[in-house]
């Protein structure tokens, strides 16, 4: 049964522009899907429809069969920027989703500390965000989205601002964290290699439409060596062709 189903979802702005055009997509429970596309193709908008931050103008988005009517407790969201509260410690930032609901209990603190452990930030509980590196801030943001153990995690280019090595480390952290509770994931990125490395299935968006879907049949767990395997590169190339699809056709026509 599909965990997330997007049915004929469209989104337009009052000025007449269509940002999303009748999108159909389903994500099975525990699956990791990536959404790639150039900037401005509407991928962030689609993610916000799933999150309930935006309401679709046409069609519906369902999570576990229920139509999405607004931000819900079953969804964790990681933004492009870490979006930490600078005046709160790492631990307080991590517990923010809990403390907005109720007083954090010792069990919540233990869970937060365990998550910090998993992302390699042990001992930094009492630091403030300004005392952390960019990679560490992104780790806190990731852990914060998972502290309530939501069954669905949405990420909007969360690692785009990081250097290549840190990004790879965070991708591994993300895979590790999501595997723990078989979290269903929708990951938006413009980085082809990132999409192939992380996802079971990659959707290509262009001009507000889904153009292509590519399954990634690489075995898990995936390690560093996968990134340099011929199959990985072949998949990246295929995805690249899918992204360039319409444009390279035009170029070919001109050339002939």
């Amino acid at each position, binding site marked *: 049964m599909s965990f997330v189903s997007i049915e004929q979802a469209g989104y337009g702005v009052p000025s007449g522009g269509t940002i999303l055009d009748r999108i159909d997509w389903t994500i099975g429970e525990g699956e990791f899907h990536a959404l790639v596309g150039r900037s401005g193709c509407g991928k962030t908008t689609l993610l916000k429809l799933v*999150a309930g931050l935006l309401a679709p103008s046409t069609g519906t988005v369902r999570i576990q069969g229920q139509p999405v009517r607004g931000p819900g407790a079953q*969804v964790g969201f990681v*933004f*492009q920027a870490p979006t930490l509260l*600078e*005046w*709160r410690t790492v631990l307080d930032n991590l517990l923010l989703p809990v403390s*907005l609901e109720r007083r954090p209990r010792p069990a919540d603190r233990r869970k937060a500390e365990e998550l910090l452990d998993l992302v390699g930030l042990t001992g930094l509980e009492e630091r403030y965000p300004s005392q952390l590196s960019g990679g560490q801030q992104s780790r806190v943001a990731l852990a914060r989205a998972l502290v309530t153990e939501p069954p669905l995690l949405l990420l909007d280019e969360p690692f785009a601002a990081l250097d290549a090595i840190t990004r790879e480390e965070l991708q591994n952290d993300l895979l590790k964290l999501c595997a723990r509770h078989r979290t269903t994931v929708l990951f938006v990125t413009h980085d082809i290699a990132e999409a192939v490395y992380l996802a079971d299935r990659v959707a290509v968006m262009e001009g507000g439409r889904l153009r292509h879907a590519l399954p990634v049949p690489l075995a898990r767990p995936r390690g560093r060596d996968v990134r340099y395997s011929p199959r990985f590169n072949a998949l990246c190339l295929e995805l690249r062709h899918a992204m360039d699809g319409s444009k390279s056709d035009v170029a070919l026509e001109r050339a002939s």
Partner: protein
Amino acid sequence: MVRAASALLLVLLLAGWEVYCRMAGVSALVVPLPSAVLRTLWDGLAGGYLLPHLWVTTAEMAMGLAAGCTVGFLAGVLLAEVPMLRRLFYPYILASQVVPKLALGPLFIVWFGFGMTSTVVITALICFFPLLENTMTGLQQVDPNKRELFRMLRATRLQTLLRLKIPSGLPVILAGLRVAVVLALVGAVVGEFIGGRQGLGASIIAAQGMMDSTMMFALFIVITLLGMIVYQAAAGFERWLLRRPWKG
């Protein structure tokens, strides 16, 4: 090092002033001798003449500051949170900003009589605006990503205000407080010029009536020191609040 140089500069200036006045025989009515000013200041403080006035001015300033800042902060929160009220009231608030508040002094004397009340009201009115303006600005400058985070976490409006908007606007709000503290002293002293019976401002007017320039200079020194102390206190409070982020 620089502090010592800056203190030395003061000593040199005072010495130059003293020597020039003695040599040129400048009338004490125009420019009094620094030594005479210091003696008057000492007598005033030790003899207890200045203390009640200092107390009255400090009290007026504190009450005006507290009242003006509290009302300004609350009004700022209200106008920032309710766009309808902002559109309704902002033109009037802008207009009242432009009115020189001290010009209202004589009217307040009619309403509240001579003495502390009218001075406190003027001071409060002067402190109201920087807090209102900075609170509104601070609360509206919240990072849109953080607002979206709070929406995603289903925070209530009150939670968003107390745990996101006020803490993130705090630096701007406290900058307004620092401006208000300086203005409060001006408000209290000038308010006393107009309608005070007691206080440092009223004492300046009294000294002027007696052509006592030496006393006027002594009072300037007291007012300056008072201003520096409250400014430093406000700056220290700001540093303390911003270094130890509050628990929400």
